[in-house]
């Protein structure tokens, strides 16, 4: 369908059916402007994915879901994406959509931090947004044509940490990180804080696979942790986590009582099934879709949050515990609600880094 488009300056990608509709709807109208959105003309929102692509079961997919929904809700809006095959694609891809006069260009993932900075400087009249990081110029100031979307992952992780601590029968839980860094530290710190908050004596194993794509490693780390007595493991490790889930399923099938806590999306919907249930206890979701939708919407309404840092927190449901929670006990769910309130009130300040976590632990 796209191939018939006679206008080179509207290279919209039909990632899914909905987007297709959006594109078709707008095809009737004149879409050939290179200026910012004006009256009666289509609003365009596009995103550049990282290597994972729009179906990575993680934030790219989630972001694309948000954009797709946005395109559905506003038939006048055109949405699209470009997938990057490797890191060197980020800059040209961002440049490409910016040069087409896209009204808001999203960079999905903190890895595009530097590239978006360069491209934003080269295209000063274009609007950009980046997910998962805050971009500043050389003086440490925010950049007026970049909106920064971040999440309070530590807050959501706190909740699943608490759940894990309450439901662990061995008083021994685990955390598997993808690649060690600022971002994943937020998951780890929040998770550990939540668990210790419930049970200061709980044993928590942590390990980084140093890879987001090594299922084999995920399986082996999971194997070692479970073998060592942990019964609930939270992962923030992308596809590496698939190996963990595999190991958990096999142990479950073998009669062991082990669980996985998923990440980013409601993972129980797509994974974890075995003969007698699902090993995914619950998941810590991160509503990238929500965030992207909101930023696109505000931009369309002329309220582009350029030069701002938008943190999506527990309070605005930007992070939280997944819908699938059948395996979570009543008691734990009550506690989750209680803690949610405490975090929102500021009664609990969830740590984000190793230092903050140590401080937090000391204060218990």
């Amino acid at each position: 369908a796209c191939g018939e488009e006679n206008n080179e300056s509207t290279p919209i990608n039909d990632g899914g059916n909905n987007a297709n509709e959006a594109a078709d709807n707008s095809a009737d109208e004149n879409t050939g402007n290179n200026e910012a959105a004006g009256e009666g003309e289509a609003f365009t929102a596009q995103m550049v994915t990282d290597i994972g692509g729009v179906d990575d079961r993680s934030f790219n997919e989630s972001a694309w879901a948000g954009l797709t929904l946005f395109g559905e809700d506003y038939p006048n809006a055109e949405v699209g994406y470009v997938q990057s095959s490797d890191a060197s694609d980020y800059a040209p891809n961002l440049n490409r959509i910016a040069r087409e006069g896209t009204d808001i260009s999203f960079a999905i993932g903190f890895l595009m931090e530097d590239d978006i900075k360069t491209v934003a400087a080269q295209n000063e009249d274009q609007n950009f947004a980046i997910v998962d990081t805050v971009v500043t110029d050389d003086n440490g100031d925010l950049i007026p044509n970049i909106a920064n979307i971040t999440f309070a992952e530590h807050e959501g992780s706190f909740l699943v940490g608490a759940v894990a601590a309450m439901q662990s029968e061995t008083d021994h839980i685990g955390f598997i990180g993808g690649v060690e860094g600022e971002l994943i530290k937020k998951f780890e710190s929040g998770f550990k804080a939540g668990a210790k908050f419930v049970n200061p004596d709980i044993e928590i194993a942590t390990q980084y696979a140093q890879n987001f794509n090594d299922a084999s490693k995920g399986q082996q780390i999971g194997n070692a942790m479970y073998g060592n007595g942990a019964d609930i493991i939270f992962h923030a490790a992308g596809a590496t986590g698939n190996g963990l889930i595999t190991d958990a399923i096999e142990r479950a099938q073998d009669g062991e009582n082990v669980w996985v806590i998923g990440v980013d999306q409601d993972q129980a919907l797509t994974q974890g099934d075995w003969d007698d249930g699902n090993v995914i206890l619950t998941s810590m979701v991160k509503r990238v879709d929500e965030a992207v939708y909101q930023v696109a919407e505000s931009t369309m309404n002329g309220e582009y949050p350029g030069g701002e840092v938008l943190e999506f927190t527990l309070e605005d449901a930007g992070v939280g515990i997944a819908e699938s929670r059948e395996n979570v006990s009543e008691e734990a769910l009550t506690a989750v609600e209680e803690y949610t309130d405490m975090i929102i009130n500021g009664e609990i300040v969830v740590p984000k880094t190793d230092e903050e976590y140590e401080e937090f632990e000391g204060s218990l």
Partner: protein
Amino acid sequence: MDILSILYTIIPAALIAATPLLLTALGGLFSERSGIVNIGLEGLMVMGAFGGIVGTLIFESLGFGDAAPWMGILFAIVIGAIFSLFHAVASITLKADQIVSGVALNFLAVGLSVFIVKEVFDRGQTDVVASRIPRVEIPLLSDIPVIGQLIFPRVYATTYIAFVLVAIVWYVVFKTPFGLRLRSVGEHPIAADTMGINVNRMRYIAVMLSGAFGGAGGAIFAITTAGNFAGNTIVGQGFMALAALIFGKWHPVGAMGAAIFFGFAQALSISAQQIPGLDNVPQVYMLILPYVLTILALAGFVGKAESPKALNQPYEKGSR
């Protein structure tokens, strides 16, 4: 954790990690013993992983239940064997450089499999398979106190099958007429030809066997460990299998030893953080351990590996 419980964790992990490498290396053994270098093992594993997952998903949806992953593996074996024909035609019939052809095979596998997945599933990765290969232990043997669980741990059925295959491959390669002919073609194709052996046909069979085994290796990795297929499901395992083949001196038992060694080193590096005493060792040491050990082993006591004589030489009738 005491030594014994460490071993209880590490050994199964090592054997599970070794299985796909071992199977793929056995495949490479056929191909290289016939004189065809197979750098394309990586690509064959990719196609195997693709075929294994897609096959399992299809058979699952057709209601085959627990049999689905097994049929998925068979499907992958067929896909692998067919896909290896690219390498066979290019390097045997068209006398392409075998290394070039193998490299192309790797590119093609990733491109083709992901492309198909995108066209069929409309996304860059497949769904996760629901049914898995069961983990088993050998009934009586694993009941032997203490060591029973160590030597016959609870691992995937496929792991035991792989070990049985080592024996079968050894038998086929060293005890049957087929094996004798296979090796003769890899050592001295002209001589084999004068003895009435169809060199190219043997090589085709060998390369397709490597496709079948590589396909099985990839499929088993995907089904038992990854659970689904994406462009990055197989990253480097094929090269490790090639290393195992060379490390094992083109011998099935040697390849088995090498694959287990790789699996063991990997399992140790991963479990180390959970082992008191080793948990303070910087992780980087543990991460590079398997590779450093391999290099040291090769430099130290394994020594020179002698490849089949006619490896990487296309056979042209009437040449000398």
